[in-house]
């Protein structure tokens, strides 16, 4: 037997209590791993590495539209291969189901997003039918839509010229992704911009955002800076970023994600502190005579303190590492499930923060009970005082 063996043996004293405590710590660190990964993602600066597409929006907010006259200027920037524009439709299905529908030029959509695949005939129908729309495979499956159907969709933003917010589109195609990742990313509906622009009551000739396909990913930063420089100090100042950063910015509309994450983690760890701290304190209280015997046998105050601290640390380390270990593949699964739109990663930065949290938690829950055990006097403890 070693001292470590003795510490681990003590963890098996009350198996149910140990298991539940470990479960609490595991859950807390699982949350910590995922939320901290979200925090890292949302607090990261612009990242142009490997970007194949850029999104240009109004500098103030993407809710503010940009004029169509910017299109030729953007197209003229060296390194820009294709450009499409899109307008957020504010789609609502039936009573109150909000969907992501965007008005686009069909031909430009196909050029900018070659990852979306659909039969040529359907692309053609999308381009040539004024009231056309196409939807992703996931969306079609979810609502049971089939090609050839007329689908009533209302908009919570754009009324038609007759004042009605109810629109009816012809579903002319169902697109899919070229690979597994893109196939998961088929939850968007696209409607023909020409029809939308003619029929809607206001905001005509405007683009919500421009999406740019780059000729060379290495030029992403340069192209973005050139576009924004072109419109600097104009009435239509722009902000150009990678598609990934734009998507993250979209989630940021929910609120200050970092602050939300910090408050959730604070609540989780405060509760954990109470739960685990109480468990360790109770365990020490129950074993006062045993600590007195250890001291009687010749173990020093520091050794006894070390045993208690090591028990607390063992609980926190085992639970924490399991939690972070589970969070890592779960993060990958979430990033995968969102089609890369929420690319959270429980990476080395999250692990380092997690390890620091494990050390802090061990000290926070173990130090006071350990000091109590270390300081106890043998005679009083054996006499039950």
């Amino acid at each position, binding site marked *: *037997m*070693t*001292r470590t063996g*003795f510490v681990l*043996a*003590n963890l*098996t*004293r009350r198996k149910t209590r140990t298991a539940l405590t470990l479960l609490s710590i595991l859950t807390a660190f699982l949350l910590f791993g995922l939320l901290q990964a979200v925090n890292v993602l949302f607090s990261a600066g612009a990242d142009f590495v490997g970007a194949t597409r850029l999104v240009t929006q109004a500098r103030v907010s993407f809710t503010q539209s940009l004029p169509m006259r910017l299109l030729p200027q953007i197209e003229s920037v060296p390194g820009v291969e294709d450009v499409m524009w899109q307008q957020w439709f504010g789609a609502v299905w039936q009573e109150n189901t909000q969907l992501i529908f965007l008005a686009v030029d069909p031909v430009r959509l196909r050029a900018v997003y070659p990852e979306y695949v659909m039969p040529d005939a359907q692309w053609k129908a999308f381009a040539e039918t004024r009231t056309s729309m196409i939807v992703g495979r996931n969306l079609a499956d979810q609502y049971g839509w089939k090609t050839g159907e007329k689908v009533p969709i209302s908009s919570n933003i754009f009324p038609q010229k007759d004042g009605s917010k109810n629109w009816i589109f012809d579903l002319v195609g169902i697109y899919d992704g070229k690979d597994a990742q893109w196939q998961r990313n088929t939850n968007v509906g696209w409607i023909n911009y020409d029809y939308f622009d003619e029929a809607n009551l206001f905001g005509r000739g405007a683009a919500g955002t421009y999406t740019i396909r780059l000729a060379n990913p290495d030029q992403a930063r340069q192209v973005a800076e050139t576009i924004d420089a072109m419109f600097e100090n104009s009435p239509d100042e722009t902000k150009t970023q990678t598609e990934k950063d734009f998507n993250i910015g979209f989630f940021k509309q929910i609120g200050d994600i970092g602050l939300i994450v910090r408050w959730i983690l604070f609540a989780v760890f405060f509760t954990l502190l109470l739960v685990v701290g109480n468990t360790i304190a109770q365990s020490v209280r129950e074993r006062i*005579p*045993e600590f007195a*015997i*250890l*001291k*009687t*046998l*010749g*173990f*020093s*105050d520091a050794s006894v303190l070390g045993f208690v601290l090591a028990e607390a640390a063992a609980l926190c380390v085992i639970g924490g590492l399991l939690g972070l270990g589970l969070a890592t593949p779960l993060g990958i699964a979430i990033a995968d499930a969102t089609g890369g739109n929420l690319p959270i990663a429980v990476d080395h930065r999250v692990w380092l923060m997690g390890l620091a949290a494990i050390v802090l938690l061990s000290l926070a829950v173990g130090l006071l009970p350990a000091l109590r055990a270390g300081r106890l006097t*043998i*005679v009083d403890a*054996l006499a039950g005082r």
Partner: protein
Amino acid sequence: MSEAMVQVRDVHKAYVRGKQTVDVLHGLTLDIPRGDFVALMGPSGSGKTTLLNLIGGLDSPTSGEILVGGERIDRLSGGQLAKWRARNVGFVFQFYNLMPVLTAERNVELPLLLTPLSAAQRRKSVAVALEVVGLSDRARHKPKELSGGQEQRVAIARALVSDPALLICDEPTGDLDRKTADEILGLLQVLNRDHGKTVVMVTHDPKAAEFASRTLHLEKGQLLEQATSAA
């Protein structure tokens, strides 16, 4: 048996309980020769356990001198006393005080974690100690799987595994039936007689005291008289 194993010189011990100071030992002087088996008897509150704690280095006197094996232990700090206890004293308590999560052999091994012995050497020492107390066949059992007598034997094996010269026993048979108590006391006698251990035992039981070679009576913190047992 003339060399003194324990020398207690004019020892006073007072405890502070709340606002009260309780004097337990009043200038007690005592010699216990090496290889002796001494029973300490007396009514509750007479200071038996206090004296035992002082001799065993679990507590320090308010004044006076205590020498064990020629070493002044009343001057040692808490840390020094802990090291001294590990080398020189084995303890046996009324309620055995074994670690419930450890098997008998692990309980016996516990004091050896404080020594530089290798794992193999520790295993050998544990096997010998369990052999001496006749519990080799119960080595892998946890305390809850043992009878009271067996638990006390494990406690005795733990006390002697590091080969201390002095065994301190506080009511070692207080929780046992007569027959088992006699077996435990016989074992202590063997350790005293055949292994040369000096044994100091506190007991309320006159029959237990008969196993000792001397009985000392304490009352109100002072020694009354000494009686020599026929055993």
